[in-house]
């Protein structure tokens, strides 16, 4: 990954994390705020319900009291306490009293709890009122919740009990109002809130018992089935305590409602659970705000990332470009182009780095020049030393021979002819030797530039092997076997055939010199990583590591009579072909020279193209 991309990633990540953190914080705070508001609203609605409950309870109590003290009831109480007590005539009394006092329920009971008259179930006269003892005990209390059994249903109501006493046996007046949708409608509900009432009847939840101000919740099924409340209501039924639950109406969270379920109890020791008030709060505002925040966060985050990109582009101009320039310059230097400068204006650290780099490259150049100069001087010294050494050998016999000739002329004139003949032969041989030495030096100094042509490597190697076959098996020396291990798949390479031939030949000669007692010369060719590998291996005495290091140095030789130029020539040829030569050897294990040459296919194509042009022109 480039520096610019890393920078971009860092900027983008920073922006993203910042925005995410802020958004998360805002969401958390928003959720808390909403929860707090929800609690407050629910508590407010609970208080409202309680107020309405108390208000209606007081109203019911008052009306029941009025009925209990009315003339009609008083007369009835008096009559029923008399000798000819006949309650038959009061069958309709409860109904008319209930209608006049706008009560949904009214029953008149005798002292034993038998129904004299019932507004809600007229036919129930004479039947005992269930839970009479508890009701009688509530005579002077406030209103309470009670489930009233009707002909075909059960209703939940707010009731009060009063007694009318006009004789020995009181008449109990039990009146009440239905706790239904009208009661719920009377509640002042804030926006987004609603109240439902569940009448706790039966052993299991039934949607038919759930009321909301628009009517039975089961009737308004459609998209809001009442069955969704089952879990919450069953939990309240089981644990008989306030519970909170979320009702999911659809896959859209905004449709969710949070409901608090509050159990409503009746009279008596059992305080049985008669109903459950459900206060619901829509989550729409919260969810929509959350979405808004999230969208804003994404927008800001996206914007931030775009900004990060822009910023990184700007930063690139200020930061990454100089760094990239430095990196490129370093690469150029590594590639050998030491004369590299980086221009980075400014005075910051990057500019300082660029300055340091420039100083470094300048120093490197200077050092290189000095080194080159030193090597040149060293090479001249080496050449001079070598020349002196090479020339000294043949010159000494020359000097001796001339001194012998002078002595012979002076001391033994009759043997001068013989001595002159001997001396002449020696002089000519040494002069020939000198000429050979000078010729080799001259050859090395005049290494031509390679003329590239398609060269079939294997064919060339075979040619070399054949050329030296006679020498390898020459009488008077231990025989050397020649092995060819050639890769037949090798194509031609672009090379100078003569120079390459010379190089291979020099290696073969060296190998022969390394095996005075015979051995095996192996010529190999193979392809490796797109390069052509040529190996010349011998089974001679091998080289030490120090010898391996110096073996390519010009004028270095381990031979008694070597010029030390052979391998230097090979290295020069290989280098001119953009190749590489290396040596692998261990003492006693033989030596292998490995030449790596590029296949140079582009050069081959150019050569072919030129040939075709020439051919077509011709």
């Amino acid at each position, binding site marked *: 990954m480039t520096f610019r991309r890393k920078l971009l990633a860092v900027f983008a990540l920073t922006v993203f994390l910042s925005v995410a953190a802020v958004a998360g914080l805002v969401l958390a705070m928003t959720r808390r705020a909403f929860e707090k508001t929800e609690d407050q609203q629910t508590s407010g609605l609970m208080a409202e319900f309680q107020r309405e409950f108390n208000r209606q309870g007081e109203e019911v109590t008052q009306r029941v009291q009025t009925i209990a003290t009315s003339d009609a009831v008083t007369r009835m109480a008096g009559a029923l306490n008399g000798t000819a007590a*006949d*309650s*038959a*005539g009061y*069958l309709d009394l409860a109904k008319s009293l209930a209608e006049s006092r706008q009560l949904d329920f009214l029953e008149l009971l005798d002292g034993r709890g038998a129904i004299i008259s019932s507004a809600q*179930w*007229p*036919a*129930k*006269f*004479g*039947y005992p009122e269930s839970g009479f003892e508890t009701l009688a005990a509530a005579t002077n209390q406030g209103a309470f919740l009670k489930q009233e059994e009707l*002909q*075909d249903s059960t209703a939940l109501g707010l009731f009060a009990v009063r007694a009318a006493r006009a004789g020995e046996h009181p008449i109990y007046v039990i009146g009440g109002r239905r706790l239904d949708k009208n009661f719920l409608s009377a509640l002042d509900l804030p926006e987004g809130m609603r109240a439902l009432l569940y009448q706790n009847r039966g052993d299991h939840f039934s949607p038919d018992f759930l009321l909301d101000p628009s009517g039975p919740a089961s009737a308004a099924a459609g998209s809001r089935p009442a069955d969704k409340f089952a879990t919450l209501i069953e939990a309240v039924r089981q644990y008989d305590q306030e519970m909170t639950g979320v009702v999911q109406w659809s896959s859209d969270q905004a449709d969710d409602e949070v409901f608090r379920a509050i159990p409503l109890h009746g009279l008596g020791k059992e305080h049985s659970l008669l109903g459950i008030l459900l206060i619901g709060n829509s989550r729409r505002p919260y969810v929509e705000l959350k979405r808004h925040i999230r969208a804003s966060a994404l927008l800001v985050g996206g914007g931030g990332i775009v900004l990060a990109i822009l910023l990184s582009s700007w930063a690139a101009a200020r930061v990454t470009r100089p760094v990239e320039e430095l990196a490129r310059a370093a690469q150029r230097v590594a590639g050998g182009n030491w004369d590299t400068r980086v221009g980075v204006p400014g005075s910051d650290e990057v500019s300082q780095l660029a300055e340091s780099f420039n100083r470094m490259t300048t120093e490197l150049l200077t050092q290189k020049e000095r080194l080159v100069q030193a090597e040149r001087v060293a090479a001249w010294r080496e050449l001079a030393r070598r020349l002196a050494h090479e020339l000294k050998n043949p010159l000494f016999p020359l000097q001796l021979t001339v001194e012998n000739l002078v002595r012979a002329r002076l001391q033994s004139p009759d043997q001068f002819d013989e001595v002159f003949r001997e001396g002449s032969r020696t002089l000519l041989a040494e002069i020939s030797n000198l000429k050979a030495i000078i010729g080799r030096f001259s050859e090395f100094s005049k290494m031509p530039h390679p003329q590239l042509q398609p060269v079939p490597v294997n064919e060339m190697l075979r040619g070399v092997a054949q050329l030296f076959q006679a020498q390898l098996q020459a009488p008077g020396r231990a025989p050397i076997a020649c092995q060819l291990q050639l890769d037949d798949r090798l194509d031609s390479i672009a090379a100078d055939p003569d120079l390459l031939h010379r190089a291979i030949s020099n290696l073969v000669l060296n190998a022969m010199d390394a095996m005075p007692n015979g051995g095996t010369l192996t010529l190999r060719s193979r392809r490796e990583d797109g390069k052509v590998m040529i190996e010349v291996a011998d089974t001679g005495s091998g080289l030490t590591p120090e010898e391996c290091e110096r073996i390519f140095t010009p004028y270095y030789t381990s031979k008694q009579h070597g010029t030390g130029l052979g391998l230097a020539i090979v290295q020069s040829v290989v280098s001119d072909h953009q190749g590489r030569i290396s040596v692998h050897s261990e003492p006693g294990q033989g030596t292998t020279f490995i030449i790596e040459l590029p296949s140079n296919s582009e050069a081959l194509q150019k050569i072919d193209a030129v040939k075709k042009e020439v051919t077509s022109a011709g």
Partner: protein
Amino acid sequence: MLGLALAAGAETRPQYGGTLHVAMRAAPTSLDPADKSQPDSFDRRSLTLLMFDTLVTQDESGRARAALAESWQASAGGQRWQLRLRRGVRFDDGTLLTAEIAAASLRVANPSWNVAADGESIVIEEGTPDPDLPAELAFSRNAIVKRNADGKLSGSGPFHVVDWQPGKKLTLTAAENCWRGRPFLDGVEIEMGRNYRDQMMALESGRADLVEIAAEQSHRTLQGGHAVLSSPPVELLALVFSTDVRSADDKMLREALALSVERGSIRSVLLQGTGQPTGSILPNWMSGYGFVFPTEADLTKARHDREQVRNVPAWTLGYDGSDPLARLLADRIALNAKDAGLTLQPTAAGTANVQLARLPLASAAPWVALAEVTASIALPTVKSKSGSVEDLYAAEQAELATQRVIPLFHLPVSYAATVALKEWRLRPDGSWDLGNAWLGSAKP
């Protein structure tokens, strides 16, 4: 003194004039007595006999009395009856009553009869002996009607039609040439389809002179200063099953239901002491043996019977939704049934497993009454063989043994009138007779 005496005397002597305003619950859409689409009711009988006459009437004992027929005799063991028509009777269109007209009228009402005119008599022949034919001829549905070609109906009753709005209002005027003599009233206006409450309000506000009242309201109405006439118990209130007994379990459950009903409390409270608890189809005053049939509830036995049945179905109990008393009765019976472990769901819808039915007794003649009741609830009609009480008892027991009907009460029919209405009376069949009625002053 003389003025007072004169005034007092004037008040006791019938006066001609005045239009009587009547309100009733029934709302018939046809005045044809033979129209079987119109349900039988006391109101309908009352209406019919204002415009039409029967050949025979009945007294309180159920004995036949002459009306349009002066005399009659049976032959062939009661299979053939010959009735001699009264002479000089005219219909409201002036036509004289003839045997042919009478026979034609009877043939329409009784397609199974073989009715023929024979001079000034009509001869009625049935396939089987029918000793009660005269009682049947007293039914209002057998009133003699002259059916004109244009569809108009003519009658020989004390009033004839001036204006008829089916189901709403009927306006009658006195028949000047009625064979019984012109009625004292000039006319009768009848408002139909009024419930008890509306009728009572009309009476109290003076808009109606004669209304029906629910039996349980009779005491209260009397206390209100109105004249109240109640008939003997001429209506059977019963539970009628729509199907025959299907299985032994069904039989057991019907028995349990019959034993669960507490007639006593229903009578004293819902019926306000009127009516008679009964276990028989015919009232005791008619049969003489009604008391034999048990009426007391036996909840223990009822529960025991119910527990013999494993799968107890829920029954629906149908009642007349326009009758507030019917609703109360149905609710109470359902409560009683619930005590016995039976589920009875009251419903005002048309069809139900059990129906709380009011069955008006058509005649004071017990066999005829029994036959009419059983026919109305689709039970096999039993004809009298010997006419004896034992026969009658056996026949009634057989009907009750089908467990299609559970008699509950025999109820009177009651009417209230303004004190100004004089000489109005009730017939044995529960209908009112205004033939001799007249309107005095409203002061008592």
